[in-house]
């Protein structure tokens, strides 16, 4: 039908609305970048054009990296996200394979339970989890987060991988069984290599979810040097009523970069992961 539409009509119905959408969706990022390079004097001046930066400065980044525990928070976030992702992915691979392919008694019900587990939000669990974390002596340690993040990562990854395993033909496994392969060999040598795209999707999605987590990290961690980036930026860069806007923006920008860069490399996997989890 597109060839029937005039160029003007197409601009009004498609391009202009799309440009407005893109502008609104991207403006906060632009604003974040611009603010983080402005000097304090420029930030607080009411004259001049606020949309541009006259004298770009790296002061806020310098303060962030050398005046605060920011590098430490970054390191914590990396360690916690990577470990939680690998633990969850490993547990999910076995769970998804068992539910989808071994078809043990009750596997359907377990599959449904996994889906329901994904729908239980952290807002309901953080209070009892905080008590448990305190009682077992993990309060204010990385382990508190590494062990609790799988509660939302495992259901998601398992659900996603179940969809991928379902798409691998049964015949491949049957051939291997006839040739005398054990279930373990089938999983390692046949199913996993074929499910690599699914593993990447689940892995980067899990990493992003852990990187973005806020409520557990806010509740279970109290010492400054143990915080993650989202919690550190919010709790430590605001002194009383003094908001260091430049440093806050720089912190937000640097904290967003790792996920944004990873996302740019794996867009297709990411979209497949997100839509796959919804469609299955």
């Amino acid at each position: 039908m597109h060839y029937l539409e005039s160029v003007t009509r197409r601009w009004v119905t498609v391009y202009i609305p799309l440009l407005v959408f893109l502008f609104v969706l991207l403006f906060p990022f632009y604003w974040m970048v611009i603010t983080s390079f402005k000097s304090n004097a420029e930030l607080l001046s009411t004259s001049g054009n606020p949309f541009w930066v006259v004298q770009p400065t790296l002061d806020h980044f310098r303060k962030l990296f050398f005046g605060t525990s920011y590098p430490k928070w970054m390191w914590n976030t990396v360690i916690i996200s990577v470990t939680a992702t690998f633990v969850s992915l490993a547990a999910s691979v076995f769970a998804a394979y068992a539910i989808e392919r071994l078809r043990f008694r009750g596997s359907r019900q377990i599959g449904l339970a996994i889906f329901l587990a994904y729908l239980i939000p952290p807002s309901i669990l953080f209070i009892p989890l905080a008590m448990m974390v305190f009682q077992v002596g993990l309060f204010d340690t990385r382990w508190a987060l590494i062990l609790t993040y799988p509660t939302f990562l495992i259901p998601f990854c398992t659900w996603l991988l179940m969809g991928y395993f379902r798409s691998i033909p049964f015949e491949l496994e049957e051939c291997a069984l006839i040739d005398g392969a054990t279930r373990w060999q089938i999983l390692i040598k046949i199913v996993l290599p074929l499910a690599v795209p699914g593993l990447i999707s689940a892995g980067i999605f899990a990493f992003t979810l852990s990187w973005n987590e806020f409520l557990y990290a806010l509740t279970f961690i109290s010492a400054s040097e143990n915080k993650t980036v989202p919690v550190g930026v919010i709790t430590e860069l605001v002194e009383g009523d003094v908001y260091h806007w430049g440093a806050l923006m720089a912190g937000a920008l640097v904290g967003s970069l790792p996920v944004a860069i990873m996302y740019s490399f794996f867009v297709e996997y990411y979209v497949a992961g997100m839509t796959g989890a919804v469609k299955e």
Partner: protein
Amino acid sequence: MTASRFFDNRNVLGAVFMLPAAALLVFFLTYPLGLGVWLGFTDTKIGRPGEWIGIENYEFLLTDGVFRLSVYNTFLYTAVASVVKFALGLWLALLLNNNIPFKSLIRAIVLLPFIVPTVLSAIAFWWIYDPQFSIVSWVLVKAGLMDHYIDFLGDPNLARMSTIIANIWRGVPFVAICLLAGLQTIPPSMYEAASIDGATPWQQFWYITLPMLSPIIAVVMTFSVLFTFTDFQLIWVLTRGGPINATHLMATLSFQRAIPGGALGEGAAIATAMIPFLLAAILFSYFGLQRRRWQQGGSDK
């Protein structure tokens, strides 16, 4: 030999394979879920084990104006944000489904607000909503539409609106990209047949696009409603429930009472009060999924 035979039994091997995931989930998800419900019936404080007090927490909460306001806010926030996210998301998905240049690049950019940590993008909104240096106010004043700067987060109703807008900004890309994936599965032959029969674009949308999309809409919107209903991060960064508790959601009030306030039992009661609403949403999602199999004319996969 006997050992390997034993492990080739699918029930035994299934149990072994399920063990790591099941152990983590039972210990860190199912148990705390039960513990949370139990805590709601106790007067536990930080550093002091509680005693069973029955439904006293709930009786108190029913008379507590702040709690009732937070329930109202949660529903308002969820209803307005979800409806707008759905409308804008569907529109954006339809726009992206056109033949446009740089399609995959644009799609990648659109999803950016959803990827970036919510807390960090919320900081950008915090700065955009600043009472003295807000860029929105600056533009409105320069354009002569306003004569003073707007106190976005200082006035109760404005603060509710501002947080809802920030939530919509983050949620629209998710809805749009998921619906776009749904749109791409609709066979073009349906539209061809319809246009040969003389259907207008509006009729094609109403009688082909919407019915074909409805199963995925049900699932996407359930997720969206669920995560909006239990939202914590945006409110905590932007207003911390203020001004004067006007923007507290049930999740933020639960945190406020339990962690800084120390009343774990009461906080747990507020969190538990969210469960019935979540169950309703989950049931809705479950029937949405059931309907999908029927609609596609297939049996259970």
